[in-house]
């Protein structure tokens, strides 16, 4: 059995030797190059575009402007399509825009023989605008009279949802309650995957063939069909290896525009490769969400009622829209359970900023920062140990979510906390560090979270899978769930090996998804790949194995149900007698003069469950007050993501998430000029993504409670590692200095202001 073992990644050799081919490696050198002209105002109407100078540049093939494109709005979010019009994503995108809604919006493209010609062409375009007032702040955008981005969404409110458990107004009347209130702000950040989004398109066989760096090939095929007005089958979308996505590529980015450019040059091959600067602004970002939390607690610490207001900055276009804020708002009532009442209002609001979409952990890093900060603040106000306060109020064992039917089967949170606090020596240090004086002080902090593995019952969860056996008994796996750098192919291969009963090295995962070939699946998002694919692989793998055993019955005369196969050997269950190898069986079957058969199985598997994933993070910091600097000394995440399919890959997944959390907590934020809406730091120098030199040793530990809903006992680990880091860092700084910072990232700039306010400087 290989599930549970740290086998080597199936793509390791190809990736480290450079053999693995990515989109740009696959593009023929004859490709025409598309460069985009982005708006240089935050809001307004394009009055005119003078293309004459650009068209005269040698090597410029064609200029397409916002006045040329069809009036056919389309949605971009990488959600499964809904056949119910009320649940479909908002279609507010055009290929190019006359009404520009953020600084960096697409107004025209230049197609050139090469990059230099195309770029010269873009610089030669003369764009005239009628400027409109713009708004960047989420709450200002909701005011009457604020600049309006999309006329059908009054006060720029894309969506609002709310809920009330119990009766909040009644609950807070209880005598003797302590009220704790705070506003918490989270920043706009970008995914910063290594490979910028890139795609190329050409017409072949009466179709548009688009090769793209995407997480969701089947979904992007549908969106391209919608955007180009083509039957979906007329679009063939191919996804090779990709250099990360983290949710940015869970959206149709430039595939529709690239396909359109291809159509406009007679179906010739065109390539659209965006720069890092464009990626920061004109792809997707993580929603900045502002939270207002009021907690009413009894003096003993029990939460009686809590109130959450969440204002999510959507930016200029809907993309994933309200789903992100709604997910965080839904988590609020579950991670802590109030004795009497919980009341929540969540708004998602258009502003003249880059469009926000999916980003690793979909609203939970934001809400975790707010919730875990508010709990720490509550503990301080109540004079209660914050860890005890959490344990008193957090989701109890046996808790069942009425909507998703998720169950908290085990005491996962306490088990995770126990491991984390032991590693940091949290309780002793937390008490000791609170009493420090002097310029350099240490602190410890922590945070907890829960995370949903997949998206059931909000959306479709189905996985299609095909397995085909070769003459030597090896197996090809094709599946709609995608490898995006996280190691999915390896986990899938392990599950196939154990399910079918063949050795690990006999499993070949066809990593390239091609919508004309690969069975339908909705791709890499949520933290669902291993969980969802697990059902499909178990189902289809079992079917394949049964066909093999049926053939063994034909060969041996022994009933199939008395036989089994493991590690590539067919044996009799009762006697354990080895009958033949899969190599022998498969060769015999394929070349049999009597009954030739290639074994294959395929189909779609329905997944109608979901699973709570849990965890916590602990950090130790050293704060240099005169320098306004924080140094991370130690950091640990502990996860219960069920049984580990591949412990080493799981650990790497956690390390990556922790690294993102360090950036979220201490350095990363996209900044915009308040006077113009222009992005200020859309490059990797000025955007402070942390480097290896900014990391402490990262520790990842696990609690392995077998998830009962999964055939492999697994659940979410892709996104959860990003959740606890930022609030844990913020809480450690509070422990060290007594200074609370209610916004992330906690940069030296913010610490300087706060230390001055609190008299430390």
């Amino acid at each position, binding site marked *: 059995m290989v599930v549970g073992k740290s086998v080597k990644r199936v793509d390791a050799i190809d990736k480290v030797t450079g053999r693995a081919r990515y989109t740009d490696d696959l593009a023929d050198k004859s490709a025409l190059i598309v460069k985009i002209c982005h708006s240089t105002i935050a809001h307004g109407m394009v009055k005119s575009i003078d293309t004459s100078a650009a068209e005269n540049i040698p090597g410029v093939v064609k200029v397409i402007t916002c006045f040329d494109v069809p009036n056919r709005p389309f949605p971009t979010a990488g959600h499964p399509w809904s056949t119910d019009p009320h649940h479909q994503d908002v279609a507010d995108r055009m290929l190019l825009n006359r009404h520009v809604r953020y600084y960096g919006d697409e107004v025209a493209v230049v197609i050139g023989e*090469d*990059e*230099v010609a195309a*770029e*010269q062409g873009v*610089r030669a375009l003369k764009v005239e605008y009628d400027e409109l007032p713009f708004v960047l702040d989420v709450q200002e955008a909701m005011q009457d009279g604020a600049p309006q981005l999309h006329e059908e969404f009054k006060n720029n409110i894309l969506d609002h949802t709310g809920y009330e458990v119990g009766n909040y107004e009644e609950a807070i009347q209880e005598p003797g309650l302590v009220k704790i209130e705070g506003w918490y702000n989270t920043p706009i950040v970008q995914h910063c995957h290594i490979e910028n989004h890139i795609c190329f398109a050409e017409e072949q066989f009466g179709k548009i063939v688009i090769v793209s760096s995407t997480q969701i090939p089947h979904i992007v095929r549908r969106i391209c069909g919608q955007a180009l007005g083509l039957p979906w089958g007329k679009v063939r979308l191919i996804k090779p290896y990709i250099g990360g996505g983290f949710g940015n590529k869970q959206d149709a980015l430039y595939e529709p525009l690239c396909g359109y450019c291809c159509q406009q040059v007679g179906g010739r091959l065109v390539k659209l490769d965006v720069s890092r600067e464009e990626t920061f602004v004109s792809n997707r970002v993580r929603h900045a969400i502002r939270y207002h939390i009021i907690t009413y607690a009894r003096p003993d610490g029990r939460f009686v009622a809590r109130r959450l207001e969440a204002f999510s900055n959507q930016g200029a276009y809907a993309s994933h829209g309200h789903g992100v804020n709604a997910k965080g708002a839904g988590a609020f009532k579950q991670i802590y359970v109030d004795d009497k009442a919980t009341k929540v209002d969540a708004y998602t609001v258009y502003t003249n900023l880059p469009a926000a979409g999916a980003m690793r952990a979909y609203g939970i890093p934001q809400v975790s920062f707010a919730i875990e900060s508010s709990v720490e603040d509550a503990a301080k106000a109540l004079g209660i140990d914050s860890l005890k306060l959490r344990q008193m109020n957090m989701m109890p064992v046996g808790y069942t979510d009425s909507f998703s039917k998720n169950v908290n089967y085990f005491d996962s949170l306490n088990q995770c906390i126990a491991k984390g606090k032991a590693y940091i020596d949290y309780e002793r240090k937390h008490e000791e560090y609170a009493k420090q004086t002097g310029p350099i002080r240490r602190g410890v902090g922590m945070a907890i979270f829960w995370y949903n593995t997949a998206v059931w019952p909000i959306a479709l969860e189905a996985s299609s899978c095909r397995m085909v056996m070769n003459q030597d008994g090896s197996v090809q796996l094709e599946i709609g769930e995608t490898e995006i750098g996280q190691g999915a192919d390896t986990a899938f291969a392990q599950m196939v090996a154990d399910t079918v009963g063949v050795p690990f090295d006999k499993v070949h995962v066809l990593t390239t998804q091609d919508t004309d070939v690969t069975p339908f699946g909705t791709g890499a998002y949520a933290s669902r790949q291993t969980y969802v694919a697990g059902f499909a692989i178990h189902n289809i793998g079992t079917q394949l194995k049964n066909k093999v055993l049926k053939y063994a019955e034909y060969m041996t005369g022994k009933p199939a149900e008395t036989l089994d196969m493991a590690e590539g050997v067919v044996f009799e269950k009762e006697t354990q007698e080895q009958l033949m190898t899969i190599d022998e069986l498969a060769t015999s079957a394929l070349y049999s003069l009597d009954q030739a058969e290639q074994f294959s199985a395929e189909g779609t598997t329905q997944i109608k469950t979901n699973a709570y994933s849990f965890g916590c993070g602990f950090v130790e910091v050293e704060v240099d007050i*005169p*320098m*306004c600097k924080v140094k991370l000394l130690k950091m640990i995440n502990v996860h219960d993501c069920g049984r580990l399919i591949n412990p080493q890959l799981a650990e790497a997944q956690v390390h990556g998430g922790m690294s993102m959390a360090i950036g979220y907590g201490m*350095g990363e934020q996209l*900044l915009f*000029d308040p006077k113009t809406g222009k992005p*200020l*730091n859309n490059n*990797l*120098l*000025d955007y*402070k993504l*942390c*480097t*290896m*030199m*900014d990391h402490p040793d990262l520790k990842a530990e696990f609690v392995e409670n077998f998830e009962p809903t999964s055939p492999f006992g697994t659940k979410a680990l892709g996104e959860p590692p990003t959740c606890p880091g930022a609030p844990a860092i913020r809480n450690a700084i509070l422990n060290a200095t007594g200074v609370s910072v209610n916004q992330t990232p906690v*940069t*030296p*700039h913010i610490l*300087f*202001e706060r230390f001055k306010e609190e008299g430390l*400087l």
Partner: protein
Amino acid sequence: MYDFSALYEATSVSHAVQLMQEHPDAVLIAGGSDVLIKLREGKLAGAELISIYKLDELREVTIDPDGALRIGPMTSFSHATKSPVLQQYMPVLGEAADTAGGPQLRNVGTVGGNICNGVTSADTASTEVAYDAVLEITGANGVRKLSIHDFYKGPGKVALEKGELLTAILIPKESYENCYGYYIKYAMRNAMDIATIGCSVNVVLSADKQTIQRARIAYGVAGPVPMRARTAEAALAGQPVGEGAIEIVGREVLNDVNPRTSWRASADFRKQIISETARRGLRAAIERAGGVF
């Protein structure tokens, strides 16, 4: 793909001067870590380039007969760090060079380029300013020498005339003799970052290590160009080694600097860091010089 119209490769200093005369609008490219970025951004699109990358004669660090350290401007940051001459006489320059960017940048970027681009945040510039470096500039009319203090004319502007080339950075013997320096780069990251404040401090102590004979302090990003903190230097001269000197420098440097508020940092925040880096830089330099607190 970079948008440039021609590349001329100089084979000697005189050839470089000749090429600059023949192509007066051409841009000089050394390591390329600034020029290529500007080309990519379209700022120098279509430019002609004159490469001096192959001028190994400008890549050495040696000692002149008068004792001055002669640093070839084509010396890369990483070679500056590893130079035995600098390690012996002026290790602070190599340490400052080692804070620039990341390993790849330090292998191509040059110490000459670091000052010729005229930016205030250049990691090696403040140390050269703090050591009263003298620049040797070669043009069609021969060689001239200029104090680094007269070299900076404003952000991005230096005193190189058309057809002129920096051919040496000279550190006078009186600057480095018995002198111990320390550089603090204050940035938002521990690598691959640009300085929010760069502070280079050096001291000469009395023979008994009890008194500060001379202190020099220079900053990057405390003003539009790298600059000295002369009020603070004057206040330190003759002060006994001790906490008092630290208090003096932390206070007095604020009389010398003029940081501005930008989206990168507020002036008040920069002043806090200017003061604190002076305190820490002075303490470290004194300790290196053998002073004991």
